[in-house]
């Protein structure tokens, strides 16, 4: 009989190798997937992983998209990873992303056509607060009624989508927009336009904020008491209570931080790449960030790398759609495989497969 047996101490080298192994397996299995669809697998994998960097015609544009797409993923995943390490499962970052964009965007629109360098920081703060407020709903319901934060935060994503639709067809609709369901453009006014810092790699100001927050998160988790309490709560809730940690505080802090970072990412999205609030500016960063957080081992540096990798599969995936006609769904499957294989490989890092005769 085959059985999984826990290993005494999981190898730490293996823990770092698993994401790489998972990516490699995804490439192989993805290759089979593409082959089954009648495509040349090597060609498809090359287009997804290499062409964004080296392709003569698409390369320059693809490269400039890399950080634009990786930025929000990294920012959201950093917030999520803090909660995930405490066992607080915020699955609704997408909703907090949307609400942050609405809250921050509304502040910008209310001030229109104000000028000044203080406008964007103010909008950023409003965006963070909007995302945080949205995340506090599952937090309070969990603390007060022990409601499952996974369900509540996920369901609130759809509430946020509908709220967005109501806003862009109602109060936030552009007066000069010929009735289209969208807000005024943020990028056409300097005060609300997220500055681009290095065009060829798509590094806008939001990416810098994201990287700064990654470092701050790392310092908090590894060196500060709060980070210790968050990790302790995730490792062993009873030991955390013994250490004097208040679980309600941890729930509120974790959801609050992840909501704030997602909200900030949403604001950066509408003041930069998306340019305005529309019903289709959210493209699922909030959900993909969950994969990024786990692919990066819930570790800040890992998350930066995983965010870049994920952005690459987005961009490369689009190229593959364009040049090979691979459907978008296949690309989604490909991205999903990465998390699947990561979790699968993880099992074998923590457990070993043993062949055991049934005990008589």
């Amino acid at each position, binding site marked *: 009989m085959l059985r999984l047996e826990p290993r*005494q101490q999981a190898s730490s080298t293996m823990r770092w190798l698993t994401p790489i192994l998972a990516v490699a397996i995804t490439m192989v299995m993805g290759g089979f997937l593409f082959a089954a669809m009648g495509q040349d697998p090597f060609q498809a994998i090359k287009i997804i992983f290499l062409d964004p960097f080296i392709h003569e015609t698409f390369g320059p544009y693809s490269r400039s998209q890399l950080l634009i797409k990786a930025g929000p993923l990294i920012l959201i995943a950093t917030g999520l990873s803090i909660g995930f390490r405490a066992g607080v499962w915020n699955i609704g970052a997408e909703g907090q992303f949307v609400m942050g964009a609405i809250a921050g965007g509304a502040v910008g629109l209310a001030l229109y056509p104000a000028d000044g360098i203080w406008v964007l920081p103010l909008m950023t703060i409003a965006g963070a607060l909007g995302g945080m407020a949205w995340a506090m709903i599952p937090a309070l319901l969990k603390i007060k009624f022990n409601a499952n934060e996974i369900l509540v935060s996920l369901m609130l994503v759809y509430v946020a989508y509908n709220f967005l639709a109501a806003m862009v067809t109602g109060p936030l609709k552009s007066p000069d927009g010929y009735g289209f369901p969208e807000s005024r453009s943020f990028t056409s006014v300097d005060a609300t336009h997220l500055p681009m810092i290095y065009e060829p790699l798509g590094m806008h100001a939001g990416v810098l904020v994201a990287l700064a927050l990654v470092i701050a998160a790392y310092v908090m988790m590894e060196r500060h008491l709060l980070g210790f309490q968050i990790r302790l709560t995730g490792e062993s809730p009873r030991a955390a209570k013994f250490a004097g940690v208040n679980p309600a505080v941890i729930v509120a802090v974790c959801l609050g931080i992840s909501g704030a970072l997602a909200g900030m990412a949403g604001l950066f999205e509408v003041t930069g790449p998306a340019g305005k609030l529309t019903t289709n500016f959210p493209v699922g960063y909030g959900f993909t960030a969950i994969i990024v957080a786990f692919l990066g081992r819930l570790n800040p540096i890992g998350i930066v790398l995983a965010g870049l990798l994920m952005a690459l599969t987005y961009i490369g995936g689009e190229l593959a759609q364009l040049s090979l006609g691979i459907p978008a769904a296949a690309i989604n499957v490909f991205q999903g495989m990465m998390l699947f294989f990561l979790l699968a490989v993880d099992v074998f890092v923590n457990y070993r497969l043993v062949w055991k005769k049934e005990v008589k």
Partner: protein
Amino acid sequence: MRKTLLEIRGLSKFYPGVKANDNVSFTIQEGKIHALLGENGAGKSTLVKMIYGLVHPDEGDMLLHGEHYMPHKPSEARNLGVGMVFQHFSLFEALNVAENIILGMEDAPPRAELNEKIIEVSNQYGLPLDPNRLIGDLSVGERQRVEIVRCLLQNPQLLIMDEPTSVLTPQEVEILFKTLRKLSSEGVAILYISHKLDEIKVLCDHATVLRMGKVVDTCIPAEETARSMAEMMIGGEFAMPTVREFTPGKTLLHLENLTLESLDPFGTSLANVSLELRSGEVMGVAGVAGNGQDELLLALSGERPTDAGMVKLSGVEIGDMGPTTRRALGLLAAPEERLGHAAAPDMSLKENAYLSARVRQGLTKSGFTLFGKRDDFAREIVEQFDVRTPSIDNAARSLSGGNLQKFVIGREVLQKPTVLVVNQPTWGVDAAAAADIREALRELAAEGAAVLVISQDLDELMEMSDTFAVLAEGRLSKPRPAAGMTVEQIGLMMGGNLEERANA
């Protein structure tokens, strides 16, 4: 003379370092209620698990109706007419009674037929059950009925009951006893495990007493007193404490009518626990597990706050304060469960040192960890308490139980507490390490601290305590000097009823 149903011949089961059962032999007669008596860790559970096929013995054999009997798994035991009702139920709350019963059956009859049978059997034995009710809606007593009816549907010849009354109200206990008597009158034998001596006295026909895995005595409970049976359980052979130099100082910890509801459905609530613990004093709190020990520790560590005035430390009311404040004031605790409560399994010893010593040892500066200081403290614990570990970077999980226990106790002792509360300080620890731990706790008291030792190991308590009290059903007896205490008195405190204790 009734016929012998089950004969147990020389059963032994060895675990690394422990003889859980050592050459156990006795017989159970048809239609008799047979008690298995013993302290926690005496080997009762291992023994019944072997009878029920959950554990395979290393030596010895059993005869059922004179034929070789050695079940490899519970279903085999059930087919041969041996059923068991566990202390902790295995029922699915979201399913109804009939569905739960079907889950345990090999070839279940059609639903309508089964429902009828459940109603018939449950009424016949005075345990009425509605097969269509959800388990989640049932009381604990009713859930137990489901477990019993599940066994009865298989027409058992031997029914094993593990601590059945620990979860029942007195009224439910009465109903259960009627059922068991009816079963025995129909020829079913019952193996009844309990440490509630009064119950065994009124219910059981025979009793086998286990201590440290061996059969130490047998008796007919009706002819014994609760006290005499308690003495058999404890054994008369332990050394009486020598009188120690003991000059108690001022009161450090004062509990006044400490009352705390248990959050665990199988736990025991604390009711009006009062005591005064003085400087230099080691007080031992004895009692069988599950009588409020865990709750007492939680109430003192601060994990479960109470009314402010119920717990006083050096005159300051701290009952409503959390663990961090209590530590700062000098009240420290070491819970029974090392992994997962006293220490985080996957964190390093460094981080586990920080876990409870942060405040008193000043291991943070404006919230940031002082790594050097933290590592020094972890190293100090490892060196002074002889914790065997390759390094302080190792995870708590990788240490042996005894070494981790030394670490946990050392971590609290080295913080120089005013009052230290420990629960089961030497549980599962080898003799040498246990002696070290006891010595460290005695020394701490000698330096002027007060120590409260909650333990089920009477020998240990007698060895180290100045004063002694018993926690039973959430109530604490009046503490008295340990010196000069007799086995009879302890037996009385443990097995006697509350009135006797109050008058004593």
